């Protein structure tokens, strides 16, 4: 199956088949681990790393083109299989399942078939737009596009929800263009940004969907914006809404919970698995990416406004580019 011919946005889960046992990227537990490997769970072989890279590219495409909390992946190697649960916090891999002797793989398929969409990894905070929402969104988002190639081009739209700040059990809804796969890694914050249509306020906004770091000491971005706003920090976008999405069961990463499990490989992975939580933030201020500057003055002014203190305040916007150029 060619990846080019595969529409990842329609895929439920991938099954990868490797005919040779040496293509398994993971060691079989209880075998002697490679003492030189950083992590003895991963084979230090070209074939194994090649398979792992291929699997990762499929998952990257899968998670990137859909709104998923996690996806399942079945790897078949010779006469056994592994089931892998990929999330934004890492991957959990089963021991080999000899599918000619054990029924776990068939049980998985049967259970998956009857599982709720949340368990499968579908994001319950997404829905299709109504006709009137679609018309308004198409007009407003199209107006913003400055590229002639994209203007007027038919796109798939989705509606995402964000809990309304200060209201219990109420959400605001935003129409966005459906995401597309990028080369961003499958793990981590997985930030995706959208020019969106705010249905309640009938205006264009900027929506950022990500998996925030869920540990003490890293504040929620919406709280940081509120604090910056309260202290009149300039050059900060106006944040109109933000919040955790969904429930803690499915919209929180799970991999870190299993590091100390009895069945987990020993010694433990050297990595520190970071917990993440699904999060969205809505900004009313829409900026232009820095690389799309129309003249060097715009670019330098934007950098200055974002970073540099009033040390440069007495420099005018024409002198500063000359000063920076002299440094380069």
């Amino acid at each position, binding site marked *: 199956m060619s990846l080019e011919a595969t529409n990842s946005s329609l895929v439920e889960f991938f099954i990868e088949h490797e005919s040779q046992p040496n293509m398994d990227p993971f060691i079989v537990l209880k075998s002697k681990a490679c003492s030189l490997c950083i*992590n003895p*769970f991963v084979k230090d072989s070209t074939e194994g790393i090649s398979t792992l890279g291929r699997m990762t590219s499929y998952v990257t495409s899968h998670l990137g083109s859909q709104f998923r909390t996690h996806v399942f992946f079945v790897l078949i190697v010779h006469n056994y299989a592994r089931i892998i649960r990929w999330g934004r916090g890492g991957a959990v891999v089963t021991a080999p399942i000899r599918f000619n002797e054990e029924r776990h793989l068939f049980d998985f398929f049967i259970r998956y078939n009857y599982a709720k969409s949340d368990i499968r990894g579908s994001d319950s905070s997404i829905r299709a737009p109504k006709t009137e929402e679609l018309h308004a969104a198409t007009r407003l988002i199209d107006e913003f596009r400055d590229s002639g190639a994209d203007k007027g081009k038919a796109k798939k739209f989705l509606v995402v929800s964000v809990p309304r700040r200060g209201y219990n059990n109420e959400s605001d809804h935003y129409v966005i263009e459906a995401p597309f796969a990028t080369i961003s890694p499958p793990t981590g914050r997985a930030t995706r940004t959208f020019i969106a249509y705010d249905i309640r306020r009938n205006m264009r906004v900027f929506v950022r969907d990500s998996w925030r770091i869920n540990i003490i*000491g890293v504040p929620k971005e919406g709280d940081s914006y509120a604090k*910056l706003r309260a202290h009149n920090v300039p050059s900060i976008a106006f944040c109109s809404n933000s919040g955790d999405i969904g429930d803690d069961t499915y919209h929180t990463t799970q991999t870190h919970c299993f590091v100390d499990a009895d069945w987990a490989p020993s010694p433990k992975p050297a990595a520190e698995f*970071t917990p993440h939580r699904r999060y969205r933030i809505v900004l009313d*201020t829409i900026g232009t990416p820095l690389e799309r500057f129309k003249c060097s003055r715009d670019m330098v002014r934007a950098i200055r406004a974002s970073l*540099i*203190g009033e040390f440069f305040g007495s420099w005018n916007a024409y002198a500063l580019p000359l000063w920076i150029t002299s440094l380069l």
Partner: protein
Amino acid sequence: MERVCFTLMDNVTTIAHEAAYRRCGILHRDISPSNILISEGNESKDGGGLLIDWDLCKNVNSTEHKARCASRTVRIEWLLICTAVLINWNQGTWQFMAADLIAD
């Protein structure tokens, strides 16, 4: 004299990153070109630019060491993704990280 200079700087500081640190005790910690936008709004108000992506910021008074170690941007080269979840990366938008952090 030093106090006068710092007071003067504090009074006239109008720009995002320094103002966030001085007025709120917040460090952004993920400065890169993709996190700076050109503003099309009121130039006199925002200086023509916006500093976004504050989700890795940290209060400078925070005593949580873990936040520094485990929360920086994971920006991993494409061919190395496969091992990203399994080995210990020195995390950060490495092209823009301080040399000390890379060496750490």
